[in-house]
């Protein structure tokens, strides 16, 4: 049943206990994301150690999909180099856009994020899953 696929336990877990929650006092980069259609909000702080994300903190309000996506993203990118972040971002976008029954998701690479693939079947909600990523994009673009 597709709703069960959408609201998998791992998603609800990230929704209810978001990882990397909070903000940083002296972030190297910051961005606020906002989905004007549904009102979801994400606020994102980053620090870097050279080319590497040394810390990431997120605060926000919104639906389980946007908040879980943010928590999973924070988990994943923390400690990654910028190139690795870009690569993951590309893979995530791909996952959200490919047809069902298309290319398999590489669960090893995607980790918890793979749980979001159910969102594809709910086109209205794809923007929710995307919001943290577009916000991250903006924060990174500030830096360069």
């Amino acid at each position, binding site marked *: 049943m597709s709703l069960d696929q959408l609201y998998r336990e791992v998603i609800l877990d990230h929704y209810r206990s978001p990882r990397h929650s909070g903000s940083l006092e002296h972030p190297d980069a910051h961005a606020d994301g906002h989905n004007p259609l549904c009102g979801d909000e994400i606020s994102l702080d980053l620090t870097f150690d050279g080319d590497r994300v040394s810390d990431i903190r997120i605060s926000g309000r919104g639906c389980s999909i946007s908040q879980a996506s943010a928590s999973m993203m924070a988990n994943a990118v923390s400690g990654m180099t910028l190139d690795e972040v870009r690569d993951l971002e590309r893979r995530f976008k791909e996952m959200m856009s490919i047809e069902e029954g298309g290319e398999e998701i590489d669960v090893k690479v995607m980790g918890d994020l793979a749980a979001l693939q159910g969102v594809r079947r*709910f086109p209205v909600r794809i923007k929710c899953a995307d919001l943290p990523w577009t916000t991250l994009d903006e924060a990174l673009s500030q830096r360069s």
Partner: protein
Amino acid sequence: MIDPPLERVDLSRLRDDFPILQTEMNGRPLVYLDSAATTQKPVQVLDAMDAYYREANANVHRGAYALAQEATERYEGARGKVARFVNADSSSEIVFTRGTTSSINMVAYGWGLHHLGEGDRILLTTMEHHANVVPWQLICRHTGAELVYLPIDADYMVDLAGLDELVDSRLKIIGISGMSNVLGTIGPVAVLVEAARSVDAIVIVDGAQMVPHSPVDLPALGADFVAFGAHKMLGPTGVGALWGRPERFEEMEPAEGGGEMIRDVGLHESSWADVPHKFEAGTPPIAEAVGFGAAVDYLSAIGMDEVRRHEIDITSYALQRLAEVPDLKVYGPVDPAARGGAVSFTLADVHPHDLATILDQEGIAIRAGHHCAKPLMRVLDVPATARASFYVHSTTDEVDALVSALWEARRLFGLA
């Protein structure tokens, strides 16, 4: 046409008039519980517009041929129908606009901009729709006037305790929702009208929800202006109305300029046509007005007392059934007679958008979000609510479907 007046039990017969209610959503029969956002349209309304385009379409006024005369008669005839529906004393008390939002902006720019100055005050409530907040913020910027607010109390009613303190010579305009689209709360129009009279302020009622859902006698209401729209009362998009007292309309300047609203146009100066045309610049929404006329005909055939009675019935039932769902919180008055049929709620920590998605899969259309009432969301201390809202065709079966789907949401979110 349906025959007036329908027996109470026969309201379900109306469903056959609404083609969309025979369709499915996500493979399930559509359960449309979003009438507060926009209503579905009966065939009678669609046919009136279609017939207008097939038989009578021409630009109105000024046309010296039969077709233009016919178009003008249908357009002005619709004005007469809307006027009678709200018990106006004359058709010229009805200005056709683009919708409720447009009607309120017309008063803000047409009356407010010309009568407000530095230090003057506009009184609103914290339950207002953005349509009755933002236009006044814009006018404050232009005039130096300021906004003050009446709060909402613990029973979700407008708190009038501080009213007296706010009523003084600085008060020029009171804006009040006749019926909240979030809480269902009926606004205390009579009290505010009395307060306004004592200091010669004007009262504008946001009637977007009030006019569609209850019998109204606008002149008797005591307000100066009432804004409402067709699409929330079985009519088409693209048209609304502003009812106004004749003497207030005389004080009001046109907010837009163009054809149809003039008496004479010189290179540098122009003079205006009489009310209501003075406020209808350009080609009006002709077919839409005709559809609006057909919508009020349809509602009148049911009888607005009956519409209101049905709304109280279905809202009572919904409030009762929703109370059975654990962790569900309703935002709004508990007494169905003190409120309309928009029922906002949250379910534990399930975000309203997640609720909407879950219900959507069951074919149930509800709204989730801030309902264009962000100040109220802050008062309620929630980012959003879910909202089910009813109209003449709503049934208890539909409420039952809503409640079962809410149980399903509980299961999906692991709420024991």
